[in-house]
Protein backbone atom coordinates (compact mmCIF):
# COMPACT_ATOMS: atom_id res chain seq x y z
CA UNK A 1 0.00 0.00 0.00
CA UNK A 2 1.23 3.49 -0.87
CA UNK A 3 2.13 5.88 1.88
CA UNK A 4 3.33 9.46 1.97
CA UNK A 5 6.64 10.56 3.39
CA UNK A 6 7.51 14.21 3.78
CA UNK A 7 10.71 15.92 2.68
CA UNK A 8 12.15 19.37 2.75
CA UNK A 9 11.83 21.00 -0.68
CA UNK A 10 15.04 21.98 -2.44
CA UNK A 11 16.30 25.24 -0.93
CA UNK A 12 14.39 24.98 2.35
CA UNK A 13 16.23 24.55 5.65
CA UNK A 14 14.68 24.09 9.07
CA UNK A 15 15.58 23.91 12.71
CA UNK A 16 13.71 23.29 15.91
CA UNK A 17 13.03 26.17 18.31
CA UNK A 18 11.18 26.40 21.60
CA UNK A 19 8.08 27.73 19.82
CA UNK A 20 8.14 25.12 17.05
CA UNK A 21 9.99 25.19 13.74
CA UNK A 22 11.95 27.90 12.00
CA UNK A 23 12.20 27.53 8.23
CA UNK A 24 14.67 29.37 6.00
CA UNK A 25 14.35 29.71 2.25
CA UNK A 26 17.69 29.77 0.47
CA UNK A 27 16.14 31.28 -2.65
CA UNK A 28 15.04 34.52 -1.02
CA UNK A 29 16.52 34.23 2.53
CA UNK A 30 13.01 34.60 3.99
CA UNK A 31 12.15 33.05 7.33
CA UNK A 32 8.93 31.36 8.37
CA UNK A 33 8.08 30.78 12.01
CA UNK A 34 5.71 27.88 12.59
CA UNK A 35 4.22 27.36 16.02
CA UNK A 36 4.08 23.67 16.83
CA UNK A 37 3.95 21.45 19.85
CA UNK A 38 7.28 19.80 20.41
CA UNK A 39 7.76 16.41 18.83
CA UNK A 40 5.12 16.73 16.12
CA UNK A 41 7.83 16.78 13.49
CA UNK A 42 10.50 14.15 14.16
CA UNK A 43 14.20 14.93 14.14
CA UNK A 44 14.69 12.86 11.00
CA UNK A 45 13.38 15.85 9.01
CA UNK A 46 16.61 17.75 9.63
CA UNK A 47 18.84 14.79 10.26
CA UNK A 48 17.91 12.81 7.13
CA UNK A 49 15.86 15.36 5.17
CA UNK A 50 12.59 13.39 5.38
CA UNK A 51 10.20 11.76 7.79
CA UNK A 52 7.41 9.21 7.72
CA UNK A 53 4.37 10.50 9.65
CA UNK A 54 3.41 6.92 10.52
CA UNK A 55 6.59 6.63 12.57
CA UNK A 56 5.12 9.12 15.01
CA UNK A 57 2.10 7.21 16.23
CA UNK A 58 1.30 4.66 13.58
CA UNK A 59 -2.29 5.83 13.20
CA UNK A 60 -4.29 8.49 11.46
CA UNK A 61 -4.56 11.84 13.22
CA UNK A 62 -6.70 14.37 11.32
CA UNK A 63 -5.21 17.43 13.07
CA UNK A 64 -1.71 16.23 12.39
CA UNK A 65 -2.50 15.57 8.75
CA UNK A 66 -4.04 19.02 8.48
CA UNK A 67 -0.85 20.56 9.82
CA UNK A 68 1.27 18.65 7.34
CA UNK A 69 -0.99 19.75 4.49
CA UNK A 70 -0.68 23.35 5.62
CA UNK A 71 3.12 23.09 5.57
CA UNK A 72 2.95 21.55 2.11
CA UNK A 73 0.65 24.35 0.95
CA UNK A 74 3.13 26.95 2.19
CA UNK A 75 5.95 25.27 0.29
CA UNK A 76 7.78 24.21 3.45
CA UNK A 77 7.37 20.46 2.93
CA UNK A 78 6.71 18.21 -0.01
CA UNK A 79 4.82 14.95 0.23
CA UNK A 80 6.11 12.03 -1.78
CA UNK A 81 4.20 8.80 -2.34
CA UNK A 82 6.19 5.64 -1.77
CA UNK A 83 5.17 2.02 -1.85
Amino acid at each position, binding site marked *: MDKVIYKLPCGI*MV*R*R*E*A*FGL*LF*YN*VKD*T*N*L*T*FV*KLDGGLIPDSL*WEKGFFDPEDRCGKEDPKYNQLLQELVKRGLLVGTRTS
Partner: protein
Amino acid sequence: MEQERLSSGTLSAPVNVTWEITGRCNLDCRHCLSAGAARDHAGEMSLEQCRHFIDHLKGIRVFQVNIGGGEPFLREDLWEILDYCHLKGIVTCVSTNGTMLDAGAAGKLARMPLTYIQISIDGAVQETNDRIRGEGSYARALRGVECLTRQGFRNLSLNTVVLRDNFKEIHDLYRLARFYGAKTRLSRFRPAGRARDTWQEYHLTKQQILELSAYLSEFKDVLTGDSFFSITAEDRKNLGLNMCGAARMTCCVAPDGSVYPCAFLQESDFYAGNVLEQPLAEIWRRAGSFNLLRSLRKEACAACPRFDLCHGGCPAVAFFLKRELNSPDPECLRQISEPEEKPGEVY
Protein backbone atom coordinates in the same frame (compact mmCIF):
# COMPACT_ATOMS: atom_id res chain seq x y z
CA MET B 1 6.28 35.59 9.78
CA GLU B 2 5.28 35.61 13.40
CA GLN B 3 7.90 37.99 14.64
CA GLU B 4 6.16 38.64 17.92
CA ARG B 5 7.70 35.41 19.14
CA LEU B 6 11.06 37.04 18.95
CA SER B 7 10.17 39.78 21.36
CA SER B 8 9.31 37.29 24.06
CA GLY B 9 11.64 34.38 23.47
CA THR B 10 15.21 33.62 22.55
CA LEU B 11 16.18 31.59 19.54
CA SER B 12 18.51 28.66 20.14
CA ALA B 13 21.13 30.31 17.91
CA PRO B 14 21.37 33.26 15.54
CA VAL B 15 19.58 32.90 12.23
CA ASN B 16 22.37 34.77 10.54
CA VAL B 17 25.73 36.02 11.69
CA THR B 18 27.39 39.17 10.45
CA TRP B 19 31.04 38.23 10.17
CA GLU B 20 33.55 40.96 9.54
CA ILE B 21 36.38 38.78 8.30
CA THR B 22 38.86 41.61 7.90
CA GLY B 23 39.31 45.17 9.05
CA ARG B 24 41.41 46.01 6.02
CA CYS B 25 39.89 48.18 3.35
CA ASN B 26 41.03 49.81 0.13
CA LEU B 27 38.53 52.65 0.44
CA ASP B 28 38.08 55.33 3.03
CA CYS B 29 34.35 56.02 3.08
CA ARG B 30 33.25 58.98 5.13
CA HIS B 31 30.32 57.16 6.76
CA CYS B 32 32.11 53.87 7.48
CA LEU B 33 30.94 52.15 10.63
CA SER B 34 34.48 50.93 11.22
CA ALA B 35 36.42 53.35 13.36
CA GLY B 36 39.52 53.06 11.20
CA ALA B 37 40.75 50.69 8.53
CA ALA B 38 43.40 48.20 9.60
CA ARG B 39 46.52 48.06 7.46
CA ASP B 40 47.64 44.49 8.01
CA HIS B 41 46.38 41.02 8.87
CA ALA B 42 47.10 41.38 12.58
CA GLY B 43 44.15 40.30 14.66
CA GLU B 44 42.37 38.43 11.87
CA MET B 45 41.26 34.86 12.40
CA SER B 46 43.35 32.36 10.44
CA LEU B 47 41.76 30.20 7.76
CA GLU B 48 41.94 27.23 10.09
CA GLN B 49 40.18 29.20 12.82
CA CYS B 50 37.59 30.31 10.27
CA ARG B 51 36.91 26.72 9.26
CA HIS B 52 36.57 25.67 12.87
CA PHE B 53 34.11 28.52 13.43
CA ILE B 54 32.11 27.54 10.34
CA ASP B 55 31.91 23.97 11.66
CA HIS B 56 30.39 25.38 14.82
CA LEU B 57 27.92 27.54 12.86
CA LYS B 58 26.82 24.43 11.02
CA GLY B 59 26.46 22.57 14.31
CA ILE B 60 24.14 25.18 15.78
CA ARG B 61 22.21 25.49 12.50
CA VAL B 62 22.98 29.06 11.57
CA PHE B 63 21.41 29.47 8.14
CA GLN B 64 23.30 32.43 6.75
CA VAL B 65 26.57 34.29 7.20
CA ASN B 66 26.78 37.90 6.12
CA ILE B 67 30.42 38.41 5.26
CA GLY B 68 31.71 41.95 5.50
CA GLY B 69 34.58 43.97 6.79
CA GLY B 70 36.56 45.96 5.80
CA GLU B 71 36.66 44.78 2.25
CA PRO B 72 36.24 40.98 2.26
CA PHE B 73 37.96 40.49 -1.10
CA LEU B 74 41.19 41.77 0.42
CA ARG B 75 41.41 38.40 2.16
CA GLU B 76 43.06 36.07 -0.30
CA ASP B 77 41.47 33.10 1.43
CA LEU B 78 37.94 34.49 1.05
CA TRP B 79 37.30 31.87 -1.62
CA GLU B 80 38.19 29.07 0.78
CA ILE B 81 35.95 30.60 3.43
CA LEU B 82 33.03 30.84 0.99
CA ASP B 83 33.59 27.32 -0.30
CA TYR B 84 33.69 25.94 3.21
CA CYS B 85 30.46 27.70 4.21
CA HIS B 86 28.74 26.31 1.11
CA LEU B 87 30.12 22.85 1.75
CA LYS B 88 28.38 23.04 5.11
CA GLY B 89 25.15 24.27 3.50
CA ILE B 90 25.43 27.79 4.88
CA VAL B 91 24.27 30.65 2.66
CA THR B 92 26.72 33.52 2.31
CA CYS B 93 25.96 37.15 1.61
CA VAL B 94 29.09 39.14 0.82
CA SER B 95 29.01 42.87 1.33
CA THR B 96 31.70 44.43 -0.84
CA ASN B 97 32.69 47.74 -2.37
CA GLY B 98 32.98 45.86 -5.67
CA THR B 99 36.27 47.44 -6.66
CA MET B 100 38.19 44.16 -6.69
CA LEU B 101 35.73 42.17 -8.76
CA ASP B 102 37.06 41.25 -12.18
CA ALA B 103 35.83 38.75 -14.74
CA GLY B 104 37.63 35.87 -13.03
CA ALA B 105 36.17 36.58 -9.61
CA ALA B 106 32.72 37.19 -11.07
CA GLY B 107 32.87 33.88 -12.91
CA LYS B 108 33.72 32.03 -9.70
CA LEU B 109 30.89 33.76 -7.83
CA ALA B 110 28.44 32.95 -10.62
CA ARG B 111 29.16 29.28 -9.96
CA MET B 112 28.24 29.63 -6.29
CA PRO B 113 24.45 29.28 -5.99
CA LEU B 114 24.50 29.85 -2.24
CA THR B 115 26.11 33.28 -2.52
CA TYR B 116 24.45 36.67 -2.51
CA ILE B 117 26.52 39.73 -3.33
CA GLN B 118 25.80 43.24 -2.15
CA ILE B 119 27.81 46.03 -3.77
CA SER B 120 27.89 49.42 -2.09
CA ILE B 121 27.17 52.47 -4.21
CA ASP B 122 26.30 55.72 -2.49
CA GLY B 123 25.33 57.91 -5.39
CA ALA B 124 23.61 57.51 -8.72
CA VAL B 125 26.30 59.66 -10.28
CA GLN B 126 30.04 59.54 -9.92
CA GLU B 127 30.33 62.94 -8.30
CA THR B 128 28.05 62.09 -5.38
CA ASN B 129 29.38 58.59 -4.83
CA ASP B 130 33.04 59.57 -5.00
CA ARG B 131 32.52 62.48 -2.62
CA ILE B 132 31.39 59.92 -0.03
CA ARG B 133 33.37 56.79 -0.92
CA GLY B 134 36.50 58.21 -2.53
CA GLU B 135 37.75 59.17 -5.94
CA GLY B 136 37.35 56.54 -8.62
CA SER B 137 35.20 54.26 -6.47
CA TYR B 138 32.05 54.73 -8.57
CA ALA B 139 33.64 53.57 -11.82
CA ARG B 140 35.39 50.66 -10.11
CA ALA B 141 32.24 49.52 -8.32
CA LEU B 142 30.20 49.66 -11.52
CA ARG B 143 32.89 47.69 -13.30
CA GLY B 144 32.42 45.02 -10.62
CA VAL B 145 28.66 45.10 -11.14
CA GLU B 146 29.14 44.71 -14.89
CA CYS B 147 31.52 41.78 -14.45
CA LEU B 148 28.95 39.99 -12.31
CA THR B 149 26.06 40.62 -14.67
CA ARG B 150 28.12 39.55 -17.70
CA GLN B 151 28.84 36.28 -15.94
CA GLY B 152 25.14 35.79 -15.26
CA PHE B 153 25.36 36.26 -11.49
CA ARG B 154 21.79 36.42 -10.23
CA ASN B 155 21.77 37.23 -6.52
CA LEU B 156 23.01 40.79 -6.75
CA SER B 157 21.88 43.88 -4.90
CA LEU B 158 23.21 47.41 -4.90
CA ASN B 159 23.35 48.83 -1.41
CA THR B 160 23.11 52.50 -0.58
CA VAL B 161 23.50 54.10 2.81
CA VAL B 162 20.86 56.83 2.68
CA LEU B 163 22.42 60.19 3.46
CA ARG B 164 21.38 63.80 3.22
CA ASP B 165 23.87 64.07 0.38
CA ASN B 166 22.50 61.27 -1.82
CA PHE B 167 18.86 61.35 -0.80
CA LYS B 168 17.66 63.01 -4.00
CA GLU B 169 19.30 60.23 -6.04
CA ILE B 170 17.53 57.28 -4.43
CA HIS B 171 15.18 56.70 -7.30
CA ASP B 172 17.97 56.98 -9.84
CA LEU B 173 19.86 54.38 -7.81
CA TYR B 174 16.79 52.17 -7.99
CA ARG B 175 16.76 52.56 -11.78
CA LEU B 176 20.48 51.88 -11.96
CA ALA B 177 20.03 48.62 -10.07
CA ARG B 178 17.14 47.59 -12.31
CA PHE B 179 19.25 48.33 -15.36
CA TYR B 180 21.73 45.72 -14.14
CA GLY B 181 19.04 43.27 -13.09
CA ALA B 182 19.95 43.84 -9.44
CA LYS B 183 17.84 44.61 -6.41
CA THR B 184 18.05 47.88 -4.54
CA ARG B 185 18.88 47.78 -0.88
CA LEU B 186 18.74 50.90 1.27
CA SER B 187 20.61 50.98 4.55
CA ARG B 188 20.31 53.33 7.42
CA PHE B 189 23.07 55.75 8.31
CA ARG B 190 23.93 55.23 11.97
CA PRO B 191 26.32 57.29 14.06
CA ALA B 192 28.78 54.45 14.76
CA GLY B 193 32.48 54.28 13.99
CA ARG B 194 33.71 57.01 11.69
CA ALA B 195 30.12 58.02 11.01
CA ARG B 196 30.08 59.76 14.37
CA ASP B 197 32.29 62.41 12.84
CA THR B 198 30.03 62.92 9.84
CA TRP B 199 26.67 62.47 11.52
CA GLN B 200 25.76 66.15 11.61
CA GLU B 201 26.67 66.56 7.96
CA TYR B 202 24.99 63.44 6.62
CA HIS B 203 22.00 62.45 8.75
CA LEU B 204 18.64 62.86 7.07
CA THR B 205 16.46 65.86 7.72
CA LYS B 206 13.01 65.26 9.16
CA GLN B 207 11.46 66.03 5.81
CA GLN B 208 13.73 63.51 4.10
CA ILE B 209 12.79 60.84 6.64
CA LEU B 210 9.12 61.42 5.91
CA GLU B 211 9.75 61.28 2.18
CA LEU B 212 11.80 58.11 2.56
CA SER B 213 8.97 56.48 4.48
CA ALA B 214 6.56 57.30 1.64
CA TYR B 215 9.07 56.10 -0.95
CA LEU B 216 9.47 52.74 0.78
CA SER B 217 5.71 52.34 0.82
CA GLU B 218 5.55 52.98 -2.90
CA PHE B 219 8.49 50.78 -3.88
CA LYS B 220 8.03 47.61 -1.93
CA ASP B 221 10.66 45.76 -3.91
CA VAL B 222 13.31 47.95 -2.30
CA LEU B 223 15.08 45.87 0.34
CA THR B 224 15.85 47.41 3.70
CA GLY B 225 16.96 44.49 5.85
CA ASP B 226 16.46 45.64 9.40
CA SER B 227 17.33 49.23 8.61
CA PHE B 228 14.12 51.20 8.38
CA PHE B 229 11.48 49.45 10.44
CA SER B 230 11.33 52.57 12.61
CA ILE B 231 9.89 54.60 9.75
CA THR B 232 8.12 52.14 7.50
CA ALA B 233 4.38 52.13 7.22
CA GLU B 234 1.90 49.38 8.06
CA ASP B 235 1.92 48.22 4.46
CA ARG B 236 5.55 47.04 4.74
CA LYS B 237 5.05 45.30 8.05
CA ASN B 238 5.55 41.82 6.65
CA LEU B 239 8.33 42.68 4.23
CA GLY B 240 11.11 42.56 6.76
CA LEU B 241 11.93 42.46 10.41
CA ASN B 242 9.78 44.84 12.44
CA MET B 243 12.13 45.09 15.37
CA CYS B 244 15.81 45.17 16.17
CA GLY B 245 17.26 41.73 15.47
CA ALA B 246 20.44 42.22 17.49
CA ALA B 247 20.89 39.35 19.97
CA ARG B 248 17.48 38.04 18.90
CA MET B 249 18.16 36.84 15.39
CA THR B 250 21.65 37.99 14.63
CA CYS B 251 24.97 39.02 16.06
CA CYS B 252 28.28 40.33 14.80
CA VAL B 253 31.70 38.69 14.86
CA ALA B 254 34.65 41.05 14.44
CA PRO B 255 37.84 40.11 12.53
CA ASP B 256 39.56 38.93 15.73
CA GLY B 257 36.61 36.76 16.78
CA SER B 258 35.09 39.24 19.24
CA VAL B 259 31.31 39.04 19.39
CA TYR B 260 28.89 41.96 19.62
CA PRO B 261 25.11 42.20 19.30
CA CYS B 262 25.37 43.99 15.96
CA ALA B 263 27.89 45.69 13.71
CA PHE B 264 26.85 49.09 15.03
CA LEU B 265 27.33 48.19 18.68
CA GLN B 266 31.00 47.23 18.57
CA GLU B 267 31.71 49.04 21.81
CA SER B 268 33.33 47.67 24.92
CA ASP B 269 29.99 48.03 26.76
CA PHE B 270 28.52 45.41 24.43
CA TYR B 271 31.43 42.98 24.13
CA ALA B 272 29.96 39.51 24.54
CA GLY B 273 32.93 37.16 24.21
CA ASN B 274 35.26 35.75 21.59
CA VAL B 275 34.61 32.76 19.35
CA LEU B 276 38.26 31.71 19.64
CA GLU B 277 37.79 31.25 23.37
CA GLN B 278 34.17 30.21 23.73
CA PRO B 279 31.56 28.62 21.44
CA LEU B 280 29.24 31.14 19.84
CA ALA B 281 26.24 29.14 21.09
CA GLU B 282 27.37 29.73 24.66
CA ILE B 283 28.01 33.43 24.06
CA TRP B 284 24.58 33.68 22.44
CA ARG B 285 22.89 32.18 25.48
CA ARG B 286 24.87 33.77 28.28
CA ALA B 287 26.34 37.13 27.29
CA GLY B 288 25.14 39.90 29.55
CA SER B 289 24.92 42.44 26.74
CA PHE B 290 22.78 40.07 24.69
CA ASN B 291 20.41 39.43 27.55
CA LEU B 292 20.26 43.15 28.24
CA LEU B 293 19.09 43.82 24.69
CA ARG B 294 16.59 40.98 24.86
CA SER B 295 15.08 42.33 28.02
CA LEU B 296 15.02 45.92 26.82
CA ARG B 297 11.62 47.50 27.29
CA LYS B 298 11.20 50.93 25.79
CA GLU B 299 8.58 52.19 28.19
CA ALA B 300 8.28 55.54 26.45
CA CYS B 301 7.20 53.70 23.31
CA ALA B 302 4.73 51.30 24.89
CA ALA B 303 1.68 53.47 24.23
CA CYS B 304 2.75 54.47 20.73
CA PRO B 305 0.37 53.27 18.01
CA ARG B 306 3.38 52.31 15.93
CA PHE B 307 4.89 50.06 18.62
CA ASP B 308 4.01 46.84 16.81
CA LEU B 309 5.77 48.16 13.73
CA CYS B 310 9.11 48.96 15.32
CA HIS B 311 9.21 47.92 19.01
CA GLY B 312 11.05 51.14 19.82
CA GLY B 313 13.41 51.26 16.86
CA CYS B 314 17.17 50.93 16.73
CA PRO B 315 18.86 50.72 20.15
CA ALA B 316 22.22 51.58 18.58
CA VAL B 317 21.01 54.93 17.31
CA ALA B 318 19.40 55.65 20.68
CA PHE B 319 22.63 54.68 22.43
CA PHE B 320 24.87 56.88 20.32
CA LEU B 321 22.59 59.90 20.25
CA LYS B 322 20.99 59.74 23.68
CA ARG B 323 23.44 57.47 25.56
CA GLU B 324 20.46 55.36 26.58
CA LEU B 325 19.56 52.06 24.99
CA ASN B 326 15.96 52.31 26.04
CA SER B 327 15.29 55.75 24.61
CA PRO B 328 12.90 55.86 21.68
CA ASP B 329 14.67 55.83 18.35
CA PRO B 330 15.38 59.53 17.70
CA GLU B 331 14.64 59.05 14.00
CA CYS B 332 11.35 57.18 14.27
CA LEU B 333 8.26 58.66 12.64
CA ARG B 334 6.75 59.55 16.00
CA GLN B 335 9.86 61.34 17.25
CA ILE B 336 10.37 63.40 14.12
CA SER B 337 6.73 64.42 14.17
CA GLU B 338 7.23 66.17 17.50
CA PRO B 339 6.45 69.90 17.16
CA GLU B 340 9.94 71.32 16.96
CA GLU B 341 13.54 70.67 17.79
CA LYS B 342 14.84 72.33 20.89
CA PRO B 343 17.81 74.61 20.35
CA GLY B 344 21.05 72.79 21.01
CA GLU B 345 19.47 69.35 20.83
CA VAL B 346 21.95 66.70 19.77
CA TYR B 347 19.84 65.25 17.00
